[in-house]
């Protein structure tokens, strides 16, 4: 072996070691966050807080998965909420009609989402910008209309009534609020961990290249259509998981879960938290839910207040909260255009 080869070999080992260390660090952080969340009920006994965290888990998974499309790939989807609704209805119906164990219904719902997202994605990701946005919105309205009109299956505008049966499995009873809380936290942490892995993988960088310059990406050998379709389907799976948590939480599913306003909230959460950081949407979710709960308690005109906040962020700040945090941090380290 020449000296150069030995040096290159050592460099390669160093890189793979570095990658492994980072991966282990991420896994440890995820585990620590889960333990902290799981211990929360021991410190604060408020049921309202547990409910709040469960809702954060549902919306957080949904909004973060939307950021994989919007922030990482530059695919502005106005119809991502359809997969949230699909998750809720798929899981609810499966539990009501078939009586299969919860894990089976969970996996089956993700399988259905996979197929639906693959078909819708194959049609949509060929389109650019506003066309993509509106065709995804059209598909969302199609699914919403189907839910409303297929009354015998979905209960129409009344939603899935009578509650969703949640038979215990492996000692986990999801009709118990504490169990549901821990399960939701686990799904949230696992979901965020997996999405972070996607964002930091070679595929994550392929998505960034497509966002920045799809034409150039194709001229270095990237199949842009395939990459877009892959992330569309993956994001749908995480959104669906959010929907499943929501269905478990409210023990039902309602047409609003598949309405365009859910997609709109997802976009708003991303604007609120910022799309340039991985955790932006999660921060946005917490902010929006706090805002929503507070404003709804204080006034009947909560739509008006939320609208003003949206305008403030969209026109006034033009960035999400986490974007400011990152900028401030970067400026503190160095202000000369270097990123690391």
């Amino acid at each position, binding site marked *: 072996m020449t000296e150069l080869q030995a040096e290159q070999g050592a*460099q390669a080992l160093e890189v793979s070691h570095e990658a492994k260390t*980072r991966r282990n660090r991420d896994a440890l952080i995820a585990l620590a966050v889960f333990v902290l969340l799981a211990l929360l009920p021991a410190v604060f006994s408020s049921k309202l807080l547990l409910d709040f965290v469960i809702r954060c888990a549902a919306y957080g998974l949904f909004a973060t998965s939307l950021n994989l499309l919007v922030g990482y790939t530059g695919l502005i989807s106005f119809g991502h909420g359809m997969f949230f609704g699909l998750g809720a209805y798929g899981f609810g119906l499966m539990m009501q009609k078939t009586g299969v164990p919860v894990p089976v219904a969970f996996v089956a719902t993700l399988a259905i989402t996979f197929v639906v997202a693959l078909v819708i994605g194959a049609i949509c990701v060929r389109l650019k910008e506003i066309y993509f946005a509106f065709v995804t919105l059209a598909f969302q309205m199609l699914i919403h209309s189907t839910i409303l009109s297929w009354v015998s299956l979905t209960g129409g505008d009344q939603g899935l009534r009578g509650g969703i049966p949640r038979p215990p499995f492996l000692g986990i009873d999801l009709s118990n609020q504490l169990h549901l809380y821990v399960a939701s936290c686990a799904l949230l942490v696992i979901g965020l961990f997996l999405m972070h892995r996607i964002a930091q993988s070679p595929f994550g960088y392929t998505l960034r290249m497509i966002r920045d310059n799809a034409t*150039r990406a194709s001229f*270095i*050998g990237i199949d842009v259509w395939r990459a877009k379709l892959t992330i569309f389907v993956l994001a749908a799976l995480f959104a669906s998981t959010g929907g499943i948590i929501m269905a478990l939480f409210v023990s039902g599913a309602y047409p609003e879960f598949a309405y365009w306003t859910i997609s709109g909230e997802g976009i708003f959460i991303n604007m609120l938290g910022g799309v340039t950081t991985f955790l932006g949407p999660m921060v946005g979710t917490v902010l929006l839910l706090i805002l929503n709960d507070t404003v709804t308690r204080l006034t009947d005109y909560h739509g008006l207040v939320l609208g003003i906040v949206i305008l403030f962020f969209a026109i006034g700040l033009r960035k999400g909260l986490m974007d400011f945090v990152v900028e401030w941090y970067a400026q503190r380290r160095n202000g000369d255009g270097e990123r690391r």
Partner: protein
Amino acid sequence: MLEIRSLSKSFGGVKATDNVTLDFADGSLTAVIGPNGAGKSTFFNLITGALTPDAGQILLNGLDLAGRTPPEIVRHGIGRAFQVASIFPSLTVQETMLAAVCADQRKASVLHRRFPLAETRDRAEHAMELLGLANKRNRTAATLSHGDQKLLDIALALVLDPKVLLLDEPTAGMGTEERWRMIEKVRELWETQKITVVFIEHDMDIVFKIAPEIVVLCYGRILATGKPDAIRRNEAVIEAYLGTEHHAGITV
């Protein structure tokens, strides 16, 4: 060897490329010149798959690539850089190189490993050294100077180890001094990398100084091909491309 056989492309009634037949020998350096609208960029777009030819063949070592998609053509070994630097503004120089090597190694869809992959580092490093971008590795592409963005664009094509490198006006938008630096770089790359380089250029001083072979296009057709001296003396070229005003200057 890159062989173009009867390549044609029309837009409506305009023949942008009209029955072009050309050979580019392995390891050759060729300049493509021609007045505005001569079909130079269309010619590049056809070879790289950005446009589908109406007729003709694009043979790379005997394999016909006409009508294939850009990713397929790149994988067969034809890389290109653009007239306006086509880069990824939010990625750093190093990330750009590493991601490009990843794509070339068919690992652009890898989900289970962390970026960057260890096996991509050497090639990325080599390309940055070649183009003199190593000391700017952590700068985001958007913050680079115009010249460095053009170099990064070329590096993006070069890092894929192409057999043929097509450069669409590598010196576009540069000052005189920067132009010469860039074209020296192109020449140096051609000499050290032993690849086939075809470049479009407007500056005649540059073309006649560094290109051993020249192709002149006009209205989508080949007006002349040959060595600089022959092109310089070609009446048709002087008339159609340089105009009579430049006649005296160019032949001196």
